[in-house]
């Protein structure tokens, strides 16, 4: 069972604001889903290696040479708020 405090803790880790209703619903839904996921516990996995990537890959090296990249104005074009030089955000320490 995922309680309210756990939901709020995880939401904070995920930088996600949830309303009281959402916290309530999330607690029930996550609990139901995790109960199903826990059927994995039936398996003996002690000696099994985890798979993070399914296809065998070999490392490929390339010359470390500069290549063209997005011009600054183009990179800034889609920002909700930008100066000519960078992305503009409120102070991270407004409430510090």
């Amino acid at each position, binding site marked *: 069972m995922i309680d309210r405090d756990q939901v709020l803790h995880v939401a904070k880790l*995920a930088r996600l604001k*949830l309303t009281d209703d959402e916290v309530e619903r999330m607690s029930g839904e*996550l609990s139901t889903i995790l109960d*199903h*996921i826990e059927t*994995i516990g039936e398996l003996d996995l002690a000696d099994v290696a*985890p798979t993070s990537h399914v296809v065998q890959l070999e490392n490929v090296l390339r010359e470390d040479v500069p290549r063209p990249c997005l011009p600054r104005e183009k990179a800034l074009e*889609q920002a909700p708020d930008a100066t000519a030089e960078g992305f503009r955000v409120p102070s991270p320490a*407004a409430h510090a």
Partner: protein
Amino acid sequence: MSELLDLTGAQAAEKIKAGELDPAELFDFYRDRAAEEDLNAYLWLPDEGQRPEFKTDAPLAGVPLAIKDLFCTEGVPSTAGSRILEGYRPPYTATAVENLQSAGAAMLGKTNMDEFAMGSSNENSGYGPVKNPWNHDYVPGGSSGGSAAAVAAGLAPWAIGTDTGGSIRQPASLCGIVGLKPTYGSVSRYGMIAFASSLDQCGPLTRDVTDAALLYRHMVGQDPCDSTSLKHPETIEIPTAERLDGKRFGVPPELTGEGVEPGVQEVFQQTLRLIEELGGELVDIALPHSTYGISAYYVIAPAEASANLARYDGVRYGMRTVADDLTAQYEMTRHDGFGPEVKRRIMLGTYALSSGYYDAYYGNAQRVRTKIAEDFTNAFEQVDLIVTPTSPTVAFKLGEKTDDPLAMYLNDALTVPMPLAGIPAISIPGGLSEDLPVGIQLAGPAFSENRIFEAAYALERAIGWDPPEAPWKR
């Protein structure tokens, strides 16, 4: 006009190359149909009279192509079905789209989808659900529901989508068309907005197997911009097989029995008999860990998603909810921009990766993934291909499962084991149940797409899929 609608993508390309069809006429025909559609299949279309360049000498000859809105297309809105990317016009185009455009595909429009490809019904789109063209009260499947509905309704000759746990095959099944999830890495993921990076793969949604092979042939390729992309060891051929002699088809009880509704089971059994009539041999195989596929998938995919979606913070692109403190702005932007399913998966993934839970959830899910992949390796020592239904049910009603996330997830039971193992699988229409299409899935080992296309082609001919009530005939 209906003569244009009768043409598959490959046939249209041939006619253009032979000088018998004007690509601009074909493009306008589909654009106009798409502009008048009532399925909500498209999120973006060019303005009337606005046409791309038609490369009539290229293999795809300027035939229009619908593109899932998960692909970045330069200067053209690309939202991933999310409000958080409303109005976003990417500065570059996805490699898969570029490859197809170089081969002569003309971008027809961007199709609706479940937000960030998270969903099995298209009801999670930030821009409203897509309707199933066979019956507008039903879902088209998801997450590539817009692409599937567009092809099934004759609003595009063909389309591309993406598949993480079934998002090409399941909507193809529910809409009565063909959909291929290729081998992981065979098509570049560069410019494909990321959901679960170790599973995501893009592929074609088409009216028939020939079209799927033709599109896939021009999508594959190693890409320096995607370090997980690989060179396909084979040239993709257009299939011609008429028989299945000598081919062994594995039938796993875990993915063909419990949970498969009777009408789907009936079509599946008919298909098995057809395989035998065509000379194929049916072999009982076991995929004992595939029943744990949903559990492993719904840890791994949300875990990767929670990391991938961290980038939507209202700083560089997309929407922003203004607050006077940076952290509050992140939190409010993400609250306002993401829909309920995306929030649920971010929460699930963040929880599974959080301190104290990591090994119990993520670590064990990765171990199950190893076991699922081993099951397939063992099975392919005995058989050439594995055959199952694509979805345990036909299309369900809009709203039927939206209040029960777990019930929605269980829809993916027959399609999640393959991406967990990185192997390719196709869905082709097998027949009808309750006047709705039933899809048949064929899976093969990594890089066996040519083998899959050949078998699917022979089977497609034998099935003779041509229902009089099909939506593309309306």
